[in-house]
């Protein structure tokens, strides 16, 4: 637990983390640049349309997934239309025309249904706001610690993990605990 050894290990760890971050970022860029593959074979193109359509005789399965004969017929119909050169959006529209917008597996992104699409984002933002408010309150409540971030720790390289602002009674408790448990956590 000497400061020197810790420093060397710390540098090595920092290097590993740095290299890992760069490598991960590069890999993500490569994958993102390739982009999702466009469906090529007829079956893939059929599936791309069929996953968006609900099998009318089953429950909550798409035309693509359903083993029902009607779904099978619908896949065949989609294939015929695609071979005839009908664009996928027009095929979807044909199904909506025949069955109503109910046939689409996901609600349309306009009108009232837009609510159901916006809601997750709104809830996420509200949740984050709630967390920020709660954290700032908890941090403020704490006597003598107006430190919302761990950032200052950065300025103190080699600083041991144990917080140094322990009160003397806390420190006594801590020492007793460590002595009693016999270093039950890795002391590094």
């Amino acid at each position, binding site marked *: 637990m000497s400061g020197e050894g810790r420093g060397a290990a710390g540098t090595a760890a920092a290097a590993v983390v740095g290299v890992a971050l760069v490598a991960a970022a590069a890999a993500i860029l490569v994958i993102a640049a390739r982009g999702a593959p466009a469906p090529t074979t007829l079956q893939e193109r059929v599936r791309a349309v069929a996953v968006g359509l609900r099998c*009318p*005789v089953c429950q909550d399965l798409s035309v693509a997934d359903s083993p029902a*004969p*009607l779904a099978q*017929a*619908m896949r*065949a*119909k989609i294939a*015929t239309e695609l071979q005839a050169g009908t664009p996928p959006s027009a095929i979807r529209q*044909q*199904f909506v*025309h*025949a*069955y*109503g917008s*109910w*046939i689409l597996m996901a609600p349309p992104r306009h009108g009232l249904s837009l609510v159901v699409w916006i809601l997750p984002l709104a809830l996420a933002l509200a949740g984050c706001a709630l967390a920020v408010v709660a954290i700032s309150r908890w941090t403020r409540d704490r006597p003598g610690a107006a430190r919302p971030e761990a950032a200052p720790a950065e300025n103190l390289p080699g600083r041991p993990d144990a917080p140094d602002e322990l009160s003397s009674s806390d420190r006594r408790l801590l020492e007793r605990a460590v002595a009693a448990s016999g270093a039950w956590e890795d002391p590094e």
Partner: protein
Amino acid sequence: MSDASSEATARHPTRLGGRSAAAVWIPVGIVVLIVALLAALFAFGLGRNPTVVQPVDLGKMAPGFQLARLDGTGTVSLGSMRGQVVVLNFWASWCADCIVENKALQAVFDRYRDQGVQFVGVSFEDQSGTARGFAKQMGMHWPLASDPGTTTAIDYGVTGVPETFVISPDGHIVAKTIGPVTYPELSEQIANAIPGGA
């Protein structure tokens, strides 16, 4: 257990801050409001049958079709019946409700056959042999067609059998029945579709 709880109480004493009436009733009111809205929504849900798929908006153009007749004597096409009221019935030999509705269908057919109302029965997900046998047994005397690939049924948004459409002389769908038809309902639908009423 009692040890732990008294210790915990001491550590985090329970304080119920300044409790004005508003501080209690505003949150309670919000809870009551939300629960009431949810309850109203679910009560609405209880009042409907989730398995019935809602009929598509009526009044749209009936998709055209040209289908081989089940008895092998040529084809049936919607285009050739333009100017007449068409009753389009999807059925199958394996369908119990098709037996149920057969009598009503027969009676309506007999009543309107002389008034220029065309009946067409399209078999749905069936084999032509069994379909023919069923039709003969049931005495379905109107033109019957097979629907290879179920394409016509899909064009009409059919989800199961029986389903029955009434098409006006100018080619619009004016009525749709999911499940077995009844004599009075189908008669009324046809009467409404005949120009000038009946």
